[in-house]
């Protein structure tokens, strides 16, 4: 997703778009849930096995706060430059849903005496080579509900199946101001946010459903629509684009957009209206009486600050400085922690940062993007990637073959050695073999030969034909050399 340069050109700038996001990030690097000791690695496990009386909300159970969740939230708050309050509280948000074991969510609140763990803050993104600041409203800790499965779709299902394994997982809710102006900005923002969070080591955003997002979107003068159920970053741009087109069409048709909550159907790629009576929201927030206030001392904050790892912006600067790569490339490379780590791991094995960077930027990312996967979802390891580059250096394969080898590495998950052997990418370095091809080409293109005798520049055409015939495996230096020698000989004869 790194080099996604989709254009929003289908959307004119004539109407101002206002997008605000509410992102729920699971702090997946915690070993246990927010309020109980159940393990968090529930993915792929049997439903309803990672549950205890507390996260099932059984009568009589009480929550106890996971200290590390507070540490992590403070760290994220510092990284996003939020104001960390001296005192913070948990509140109950009362609403009913079968995935919520207690029919209230222990969350935080910024009204009625409530103070969330981070206030304000911002994230800087780069859009069209310019920096833009996206302001945050707040960040807060809360518990994840369970997971609902519908038979068919939410609207057609006769009943709902609930798995509470996810219930009680620590969520950090991050709320932005309506500062985003396009679906693409929303995506870039989320990419940046994810990179920050992954650099902090508090979450792995590649885990399925670990970063989910609700979006508020409106066009100037129109009503605000809330889009829920966007369960991956990949879907955000699609969902927002769909919703924007829908609202623009309504505007063009003179229809007033209804203020409502819509549900993103990822399979169909549409948003659908979900009008339920529950929309008369009255969450009846009040302080959680089963928990006590949290006092965050300056010492505590400083301790967390001292443990903070390098953030993407700093890493980008370091890449520019230490590896002498262009700022744009450094920005792309640090847009994902996995990618930046891949880059630096390659450098450790092969100290040619610029070559590595070029190959990542021009080829690797394009292929990943085509397949719509991320670097850590592909099987390509830094070792394999670097080995491929080394085969170019040793003359085993040509640059041109290497491009094909890389494509097969990503697509077929094979190491470069295997591909080279199986597909005959091995470079032809034997002069006698190449000479045979050169002779053939001279016969096939007599006019080009005449041109080359007059002007060296035409030699390139001939060598290109040799490369084509050998599917790029002929050593280009030797090929050029042999053609030049032959042309020189013909010139002598002509004279």
């Amino acid at each position: 997703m790194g080099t996604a340069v989709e254009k929003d050109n289908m959307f004119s700038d004539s109407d101002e778009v206002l997008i605000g996001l509410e992102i729920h990030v699971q702090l997946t690097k915690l070993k246990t849930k927010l309020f109980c000791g159940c393990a968090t690695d529930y993915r792929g496990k049997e439903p309803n096995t990672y549950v205890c009386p507390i996260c099932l909300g059984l009568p009589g159970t009480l929550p106890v706060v996971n200290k590390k969740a507070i540490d992590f939230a403070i760290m994220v708050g510092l990284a996003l430059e939020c104001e960390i309050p001296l005192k913070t509280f948990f509140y109950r948000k009362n609403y009913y849903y079968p995935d919520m074991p207690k029919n209230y969510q222990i969350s935080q609140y910024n009204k009625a005496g409530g103070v969330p763990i981070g206030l304000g803050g911002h994230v800087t993104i780069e859009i069209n080579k310019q920096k833009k600041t996206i302001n945050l409203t707040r960040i807060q800790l809360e518990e994840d509900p369970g997971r609902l499965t519908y038979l068919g779709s939410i609207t057609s299902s006769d009943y709902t199946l609930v798995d509470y394994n996810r219930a009680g997982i620590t969520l950090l809710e991050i709320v932005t101001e309506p500062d985003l102006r396009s679906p693409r900005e929303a995506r870039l923002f989320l990419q940046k946010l994810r990179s920050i969070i992954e650099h902090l080591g508090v979450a792995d955003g590649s885990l399925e459903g670990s970063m989910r997002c609700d979006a508020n979107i409106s066009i100037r003068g129109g009503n605000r629509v809330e889009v829920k159920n966007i369960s991956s970053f990949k879907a955000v741009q699609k969902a927002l684009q769909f919703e924007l087109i829908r609202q623009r069409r309504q505007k063009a048709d003179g229809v007033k957009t209804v203020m409502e909550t819509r549900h993103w159907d990822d399979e169909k790629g549409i948003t659908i209206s979900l009008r339920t009576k529950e929309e008369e929201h009255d969450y009846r927030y009040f302080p959680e009486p089963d928990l006590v206030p949290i006092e965050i001392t300056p010492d505590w904050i400083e301790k967390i600050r001292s443990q903070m790892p390098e953030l993407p912006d700093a890493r980008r600067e370091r890449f520019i400085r230490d590896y002498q790569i262009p700022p744009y490339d450094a920005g792309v490379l640090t847009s994902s922690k996995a990618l930046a780590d891949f880059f630096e791991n390659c450098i450790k094995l092969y100290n040619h940062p610029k070559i590595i960077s070029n190959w990542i930027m021009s080829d690797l990312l394009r292929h990943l993007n085509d397949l719509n996967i991320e670097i850590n979802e592909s099987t390509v390891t830094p070792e394999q990637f670097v080995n491929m580059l080394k085969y170019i250096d040793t003359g085993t394969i040509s640059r041109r073959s290497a491009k094909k080898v890389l494509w097969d590495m990503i697509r077929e998950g094979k190491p470069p050695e295997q591909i080279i052997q199986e597909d005959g990418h091995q470079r032809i370095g034997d002069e006698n073999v190449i000479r045979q091809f050169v002779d053939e080409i001279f016969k096939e293109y007599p006019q080009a030969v005449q041109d080359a005798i007059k002007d060296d520049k035409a030699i390139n055409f001939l060598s290109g034909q040799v490369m084509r015939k050998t599917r790029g495996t002929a050593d280009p230096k030797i090929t050029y050399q042999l053609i030049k020698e032959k042309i020189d000989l013909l010139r002598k004869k002509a004279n």
Partner: protein
Amino acid sequence: MASFYELTAYELHSMLQNGDITAEELIYSLFDRIQKTETKIKAYITLLKENAINQARLLDKKLRNSNFFGILAGIPIAIKDNICTKNIRTTCSSKMLDNYVPPYNATVIERILAEGGIIIGKTNMDEFAMGTTTESSYYQITHNPWSLEHVPGGSSGGSAAAVAADETILALGSDTGGSIRCPASFCNMTGIKVSYGSISRYGLISYACSLEQIGPLTKDVRDCALLLNVLVGRDPYDSTTLNRPKIDFLATLDEDIKGLRIGIPKEFMGTGTAEAVSKAVWNAVHLLESFGVTYDEISIPLIDYAVPCYYIIAMSEASSNLARYDGIRYGYRVEKDEGEWNEIFAEDRLAFGPEVRRRIMLGTYALSAGYYDMYYLKALKVRTLLRNQFEAQFKSYDIILGPTMPTTPFKIGEMISDPLAMYRTDIDTVAANVTGLPAISIPCGFSDGLPIGLQLIGNSLQEELLLRVAYKFQQETDYHKKKPPIGG
């Protein structure tokens, strides 16, 4: 000699230790008694005879073969049915939880079992602890052993009646607005609500979490101290428990109380207080005076606002605490399968009785948009002021004294149709819950054969002092030794 079941835990403890009686004999003695009286009293929802006998046998073996001798070794104890017991049905006296079997023990249960206590049954209560009479139980009305036409008080009515009728040696109750002290008063028992945070609430099915505490209902102050030795202490499963240093409440019972100062707020002796009650309370004060205690009549004006303040907070918390009963993970679920979530949800909740539904609705209202400031937040400010007023008095007085209940027990049916009148009878008990202060109720007299309770409220964490004064009082009186006329 008295029958085994008539003795106190303290007395039985040494008998068991000396081998004068086995745990099994004690259990049999008790269940014989239960068989004779329980049909009249109806204190229990669940009796665990077989369980108890097995446990007693195991314990007897253990006592013979090791030097284990827990504080409660072999002592039978009845548990209010809102305290979770692993693999033992726990109903809260509600149709909602009729077949609910917790897969875990409340922390207090773990502590009791670790000291060798034997759980003999789960006791009747007001549904979800919401009541002052134990009449709102889905199962049965518990009768006051002192007069079967009268209520035992509530909400821990089953526990108090069971102790009073000698159907158990010890009992646990819970006190959200007086639910231990009221039935203690009505059944002539000793009951204490400790300082908030002293006893773990883990496993106590919440009614109003910021107000309630589990506590003992016992035959006398010494047993109360004994049971507190087991119950009090920090619990890592309850964030609101205090890290109190380990106290032996029995050790200081005998200490002198001379020179203590008592304040008697006139608000506790208001017009609603029955003459017989105030007379008994004043007699108690004069007796205490004879032990070298001084007293003053004082005023804590905000006591007059404690009841509405209490009910607003309690109902607000309850509306949220009881939201989880939707029939999905446990509890009552309508048969039919079709229907939308909100509809089915609302139908499942018809399993709540009328008082529970009323409190959920009023609490929902008090927290809802537009009314939150007026009710809930306002009540939290009144709470602060009430606490301040008590704190101010504790600068001059060691103990605040008054009646536990303004009257002797109500007749069965007398209060059921008038909830507001019933709420008002909590006037003397709720202040201790709103402020989190410890309060004990002990017997101090009778009127027409019905018991009267004396309430002592202490400063925060002053249970030791309360117990000492109450113990001295019981040394010099025999109200607590009287047995109800139920025969058997």
